[in-house]
């Protein structure tokens, strides 16, 4: 396990460097574009002298490299992400905190749903291996995976809101309302295929294990064997991998779902902030996303090592 601990440590030590490079790239790219927050928020008003005054107040008139130095210094020494231009000098955690909270709860819902459908579907497909049901179940979820979230959301709205009138067509009124059903379904559908396939593969591995044969020989009923012996053993690795992988999909899916359905989450907020050139918000979101991705990737790698010892051996041999 020494090699493994060293591996984790190396990956974590690399994180600050990653954040440094990513933050510099983002910093430079945002300031590169046409327009800046001052000109965006002044609207029709055009007074170069006033613009220059405001830019000077925020330090936007300095060279980009100097601005970046100041930003990093403040961030590292004081944990200060700067202020939002779009929300009149409110601090970044103040502005994005509530948005992240909304998205996080939506993400947890979607994750649970992915899991609730994917695992049974995968186990079912594995048990039915050899019959037409196995490829059929997997193909159905593969089809859902093939539909981009952006395409899925309007179709779901069309069917369940516009035609059937079962669900509200969008908006947001708390996480315990019917308005959360559509985004949750839209976000979870693409991920189910991955979970189901992984669950299928691991279940197939367990199906032929000795302890399963023993359980059968003991005369236990199929249901008990499925839940107590097979599902439990194939579950753990699937879960860990899924948490990591689905985080990536959820962040990207949230951008479309929230924009289309009018949910005040971080995805939609990021979109609005890019259009509004709200530099500090963009940077904070990208840096948090990067940190989350690094941990998610690490988690996936570790899960794969746990699932397949050959990966670990391969790493050691190099």
């Amino acid at each position: 396990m020494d090699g493994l601990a060293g591996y984790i440590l190396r990956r974590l030590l690399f994180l600050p460097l990653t954040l440094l490079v990513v933050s510099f790239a983002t910093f430079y790219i945002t300031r590169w574009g046409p327009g800046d927050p001052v000109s965006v928020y002044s609207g029709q008003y055009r007074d170069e002298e006033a613009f220059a005054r405001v830019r000077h107040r925020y330090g936007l008139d300095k060279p980009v490299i100097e601005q970046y130095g100041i930003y990093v210094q403040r961030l590292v020494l004081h944990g200060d992400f700067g202020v939002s231009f779009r929300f009149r000098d409110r601090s970044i955690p103040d502005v994005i905190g509530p948005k992240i909270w909304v998205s996080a709860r939506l993400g947890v819902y979607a994750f649970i749903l992915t899991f609730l459908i994917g695992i049974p579907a995968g186990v079912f497909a594995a048990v039915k291996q050899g019959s037409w049901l196995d490829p059929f179940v997997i193909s159905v979820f593969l089809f859902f995976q093939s539909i981009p979230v952006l395409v899925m959301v309007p179709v779901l709205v069309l069917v369940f809101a516009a035609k059937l009138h079962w669900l509200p067509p969008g908006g947001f009124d708390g996480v315990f309302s019917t308005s959360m059903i559509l985004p949750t379904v839209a976000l979870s559908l693409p991920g189910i295929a991955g979970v189901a396939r992984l669950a299928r593969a691991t279940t197939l591995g367990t199906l032929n294990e000795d302890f399963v044969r023993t359980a059968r020989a003991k005369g236990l009923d199929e249901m008990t064997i499925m839940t107590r012996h097979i599902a439990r053993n194939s579950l753990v690795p699937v879960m860990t991998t899924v948490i990591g992988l689905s985080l990536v999909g959820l962040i990207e899916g949230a951008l479309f779902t929230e924009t289309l359905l009018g949910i005040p989450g971080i995805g939609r907020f990021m979109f609005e902030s890019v259009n509004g050139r709200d530099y500090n918000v963009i940077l904070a979101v990208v840096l948090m996303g990067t940190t989350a991705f690094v941990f998610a990737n690490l988690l996936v790698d570790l899960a794969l090592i746990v699932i397949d010892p050959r990966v670990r051996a391969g790493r050691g041999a190099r």
Partner: protein
Amino acid sequence: MTQLNIELAHAEAGVRAEHSESLTRRSIRRLLRKKIAVACLVVIAVFYTVGAFAPLIAPYGYAEQNLDLSFNGPSLHHPFGTDRNGRDSLSRIILAARTTVVVTLATVATGMVLLPVSLGMLAGYRGGFVDAAINRTGEILSSMPGLPMLLLISATMRPRFVGWVKDFEGKIDVHWWRWLANFTGLCDQSQDATSCHHPLTSSGFADYFLIFAVLSLFGWVGGARLVRTQVLTLRRSEFILAAEASGASTRRILFQHILPNIMPIVIVGASAGLGSIAASEIGLTFLGVGIQPPHPSFGALITDGAPRTVLENHPELLLVPAAIVASLIFAFNLLGDALNDVFTSRAN
């Protein structure tokens, strides 16, 4: 009796072919034996043919408006109806296929084949500093949140990039360039009289290029890692050692011995990536940083079909493009699976 002999002869010939034919031919034959793979290939081939010859097939132009026919339902003249501006939906779908074709082909060629193969081989064969540099760059790129970064880069790059292309077009204002633009249909006098001053920018090809550049920038990492691992394994194999011992040049080893052996992984990786490339273009266009109006793209069609009022009264404007996108990406994914089976079963 003769029938049996003929059959035996055929079977024998089949066995012989199995042993003597090349890896490529055997893989293709195995692929064609799978019914699902063939069906996917047909769907993809139809889509790409329609996309490639879009201007010839589409009955109307993508920007041809007729405001008298705004939001007309499906009819004989307009099988999939017309949109808000009275533009023929069928023609817009056909021309949107061209966008998908150009973007996916360009991105696959660069981001899924050229960059992964060259960088992966370089990292795997050179090792040392080059290897570390490529690996670390890939690690940083893959830890960025992809879509927000794509959004950010396209949003800030686009105006600048289009400016560059315009400058470039101003400088090469020569006869043959005009002729080429006319010949390839980049500029169409009947649609827009001024389009021939800047054929690349006004035809939307500058947008295509930006999208493919951005997608390639983030797309090569996974493929390069796979290639690198494969090269590391191959380096220690006997036939490479033999080639090195017999004094083959590095170039010869890389291109004659290693490249053919990594192509299967590259093909599987590229076919698996095609669907997500098509989806990314649609997403970027929806977010307003991809293909710009009035140029057609499935992203634009879905954005136009998604508002509540359009959805309730003219669902065909959303459902037709949605069904086409879904079946194309589904075909890509199934084909990717089939290819994976074909190449991994080679070992058995």
